């Protein structure tokens, strides 16, 4: 079938690919600034303490130390946080975790900076530290922040869950636990900066949100908009962690005082200590169904440990509550998810914002219900899954683009094949096979709040199109996608569009590269700008060619009368003409998804304008003698609305599966114990199953050419599918992640598989 589009749906060349293949792409640590000073932060040696005194005099005596800064040197507001501002750039009155920065050294070399931080004397008065949720919520617990230890609670209440459970035929009630997880992008956080001729502080950042960084740095330093410029350098992955500031504030502070180039490159060890983690969750989930397997009621009490600071914790609690039902229709909903402060280093955003943790629980519940009711796991999902017209837990009706049933249908043949043939095949001795399903839904964009994006398109007098976007491409390929959107509207090759990305001097705010929002939201903003340009071109073109606008179509940088390519007018001629008329050759696009804020008590509202859906099938082998799990295959069906760049979508799916394999089987960040990459395992290529990606296109009418998003959805169903498969293999379920060697072997022992004879 011939596509109706020229650019959309095409696997065009990635924007920055040649630089990345030849080693020419400049990541922050690669930026050479002449005579740049090295920065290094002294972090707290206490979990929870009042700072009595910071003595930097010995450090200042070391030759090569240029200066040492403390909170007292911050001229503006010493607080950061994108949702709630509770995190100081440098600790002033107290420290709340071992990651808290206390003083910042600027020195001639990294080595001197390292020596200097060793001789800074900080006098503390210790306070009682709290590490877990129970201790944080205990009556009389010490307050980590003035407002107390509960940062936020999201409540979703619909119907009457209490009464509904009484009428349920089958109820499953379980507790699920997940671990803190490290993003472990391969590029350790880094930044660099200088002061340019007009006094502007120019900061190169490895970031997912340059315009947010800009605002925060301005705030710390009390500077105006144009006195700070953030340039996004090539960014080596983010997965949520680079939504928080890493070194931008330190670089800004040093530039402000020293007016000399500086750089700060975290070691991997500092990156582990200083940056956010995925929130560990404790989830109590109770799900009830009637005798036919129709879900009736759900009750969830979930707690996430955000550590010392909020970061994105409120969003994590909020999203996990909304997504607690899973992609299933349930009339009676009673969900509360609380985000709690402790003295662990802080947790923040990580691919999925709490939805992956919640999906582990709701998908386990679905399998448990199915088993108890004698149903097939696919059947119970088919029966309850969202479809067009379904109403979710927040009372929002899902009208268009609900591709969950289609995802399940696409998985079905693989499921049946695996169940009938693969599982029953003879395997190597002491190996048990199992298969499992994981379903998910995911709201695109931020939860029930405004989250607009903007973009600007310019036409130069040579007829060339220039796209300015604040949207950070951190490897996922948004820059490429946005040119495809603009190119499609303007009938030009995406490659011909000049692109300016993530430079606050030139670009306007596109919001964060998070919440799987950039294709949908920034895609729409770019489309809006491109359409404004297209309208002006069509008006002028119609004028010139003396036909109606509807008779015109776009050629290569020209407009032509449909069917008569010889009767055309080129963009450069039109650009000059428009300019002569005094019309600006610049168009600003804007898009903000339509949402209704969630009621604080009931959580009713309309949190997202659209949702992505997915279903994964996992095929695993469990070694019943050692607890080793091998994931053999993942079939991953994803409703993305429209795949603008199918190979990019596949890249997101495969990458998400890899992260899901890690989340399921091996990743556990232990505060105080996980120090370097020796202590933390992410999957190698040898740990990866074959991935069969299936793209489902349930077109979203409000999306750019129907697109939604896929970044986070790619990860979410994998761990639940694997855990369900391990349970299927052993006949014994695991309720905490990761399913490591120890817990799987224990399950094998408990289920009677561990022994000289092989149990069927």
């Amino acid at each position, binding site marked *: 079938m011939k596509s109706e589009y020229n650019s959309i749906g095409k696997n065009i060349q990635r924007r920055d690919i040649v630089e990345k293949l030849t080693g020419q792409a400049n990541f922050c640590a690669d930026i050479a600034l002449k005579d740049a000073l090295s920065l290094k932060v002294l972090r707290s040696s206490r979990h929870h303490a009042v700072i009595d005194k910071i003595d930097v005099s010995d450090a200042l005596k070391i030759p090569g130390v240029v200066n040492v800064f403390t909170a007292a040197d911050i001229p503006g507001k010493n607080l950061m946080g994108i949702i709630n501002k509770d995190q100081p750039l440098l600790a002033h009155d107290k420290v709340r975790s071992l990651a808290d920065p206390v003083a910042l050294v600027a020195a001639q070399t990294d*080595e001197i900076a390292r020596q200097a931080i060793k001789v800074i004397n900080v006098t503390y008065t210790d306070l009682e530290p709290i590490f877990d949720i129970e201790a944080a919520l205990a009556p009389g617990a010490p307050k980590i922040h003035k407002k107390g230890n509960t940062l936020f609670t999201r409540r979703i209440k619909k119907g009457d869950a209490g009464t509904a459970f009484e009428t349920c035929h089958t109820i499953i009630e379980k507790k699920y636990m997940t671990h803190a997880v490290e993003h472990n992008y391969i590029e350790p956080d880094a930044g660099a900066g200088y002061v340019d001729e007009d006094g502007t502080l120019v900061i190169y950042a490895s970031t997912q949100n340059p315009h947010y960084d800009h605002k925060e740095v301005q705030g710390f330093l009390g500077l105006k908009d144009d006195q700070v410029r953030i340039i996004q350098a090539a960014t080596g992955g983010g997965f949520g962690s680079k939504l928080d500031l890493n070194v931008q504030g330190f670089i800004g502070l040093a530039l402000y005082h020293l007016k000399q180039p500086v750089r700060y490159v975290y070691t991997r060890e500092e990156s582990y200590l200083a940056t956010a983690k995925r929130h560990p969750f404790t989830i109590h989930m109770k799900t009830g169904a009637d005798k036919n397997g129709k879900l009736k009621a759900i009750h969830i009490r979930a707690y996430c440990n955000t550590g010392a600071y909020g970061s994105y914790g409120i969003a994590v609690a909020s999203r996990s509550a909304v997504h607690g039902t899973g992609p299933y229709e349930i009339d009676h909903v009673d969900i509360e998810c609380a985000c709690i402060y402790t003295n662990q280093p802080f947790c923040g955003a990580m691919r999925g914002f709490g939805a992956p943790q919640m999906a582990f629980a709701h998908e386990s519940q679905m399998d448990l219900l199915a088993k108890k009711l004698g149903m097939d796991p696919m059947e119970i999902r088919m029966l309850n899954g969202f479809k067009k017209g379904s109403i979710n837990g927040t009372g929002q009706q899902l009208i268009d683009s609900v591709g969950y049933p289609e995802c399940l249908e696409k998985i079905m043949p693989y499921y049946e094949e695996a169940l009938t043939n693969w599982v029953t095949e003879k395997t190597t*001795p*002491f190996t048990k096979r199992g298969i499992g399903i994981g379903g998910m839904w995911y709201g695109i964009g931020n939860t029930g709040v405004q989250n607009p994006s903007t973009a600007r398109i310019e036409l130069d007098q040579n007829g060339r199109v220039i796209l300015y976007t604040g949207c950070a491409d951190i490897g996922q390929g948004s820059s490429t996608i946005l040119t495809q959107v603009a190119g499609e509207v303007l009938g030009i090759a995406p490659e011909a569009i000049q692109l300016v990305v993530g430079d606050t001097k030139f670009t306007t705010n596109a919001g964060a590269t998070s919440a799987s929002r950039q294709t949908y939201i920034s895609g729409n903003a770019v489309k809006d700008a491109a359409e404004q340009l297209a309208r002006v071109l069509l008006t002028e073109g119609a004028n010139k060619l003396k036909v109606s606008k509807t008779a015109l179509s776009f050629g290569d940088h020209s407009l032509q009368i449909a069917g008569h390519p010889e009767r055309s007018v080129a963009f450069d001629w039109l650009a000059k003409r428009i300019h002569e008329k005094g019309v600006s050759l610049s168009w600003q696009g804007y898009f903000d998804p339509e949402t209704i804020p969630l009621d604080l008590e009931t959580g009713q509202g309309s949190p997202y304008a659209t949702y992505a859906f997915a279903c994964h099938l996992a095929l695993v082998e469990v*070694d*019943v*003698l*050692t*607890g*080793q799990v*091998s994931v053999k295959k993942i079939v991953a069906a994803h409703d993305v609305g429209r795949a603008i760049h199918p190979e990019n979508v596949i890249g997101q799916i495969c990458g998400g599966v890899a992260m899901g394999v890690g989340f399921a089987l*091996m990743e556990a960040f232990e505060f105080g114990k996980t120090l370097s990459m*020796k202590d933390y*395992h992410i*999957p*190698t*290529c*040898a*740990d990866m199953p074959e991935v069969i990606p299936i793209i489902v296109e349930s077109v979203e009418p409000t999306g750019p050419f129907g697109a939604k998003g896929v970044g986070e959805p790619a990860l979410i169903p994998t761990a639940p599918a694997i855990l369900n498969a391990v349970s299927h293999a052993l006949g014994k379920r695991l309720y905490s992640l990761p399913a*490591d*060697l*120890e817990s799987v*072997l*224990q399950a094998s*022992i408990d289920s009677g598989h*561990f*022994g*000289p*004879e092989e149990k069927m």
Partner: protein
Amino acid sequence: MADFKYIRPDNLPEALDFLWDNGQDTAIIAGGTDVMIDVKSGKLDKKYLLDISRLDELKGIELNGRDLCVGSGVTLSEIYTSALLASNALALQKSAVNFAARQIRNIATIGGNVAHSSPCGDTVPSLLLHDAIALVADKKGIQHIPMEQMATSAYMSSLTPQQIIVKFILTPYQDGYADFQKIGRRKELAISRMSMAAFVKKDSTGRISFLKLALGACTPVPCSMGAVEAFLTGKVPTRELLWEAGGLLAERMIEITGNRSSTIYKKPAVQGLFMRILFPMVGS
């Protein structure tokens, strides 16, 4: 970073001369995969770093009659690809298969792996299996040290600061069943949670006529598992018998280590891994 002088001798006598005079102040670098971590973290508190990675005397794998000689400077990649080892010391060859990663195998040496004395050293169980003797030299002469005596405790080698391991002399095993397996937290690039090497011969009646067994990452220093070998020798391997022997092996391990938090996993896993490795002996 550390403050030291880099020395690269041209031959072994030169290296031994240098160590005789400066051994106490010298760290030895072969592949460097362990010592470089200390160099970078500034933990290396020596005046000299002696690079023995290019000494020809430490290279080569040869079979001299009943002696299978593996130079201490042989890299894990060389072990991995050695046909001679595949036919005479299969377990050792297999221990290189999942050793760290290709980039590490390309420079890490068997001598370095042994001298580092990590309880998780992947080549150690296979060397034990082959009754390896380390040929250790200093300026004054040569000493033969059995593998069991190469480490005094975890990460503490019994070598003097003047000594270099020249080679390992192994007893070759042909026509029998040999295996090495390890359990890690992922399939590649993993530190051994546990490893095991075994060599088995059966006689014409199906009885085990010869068995050697060695554990890795289970005890602080390499230990003989003679009691388990004796238990199985002369018996026809069945599922139940192997299971019982695996249980004995686990008990023997706990006798040495005592009960630790890791024992909860390691006790059954030793039994399980033993079953997995020895199972092909049942009925064949």
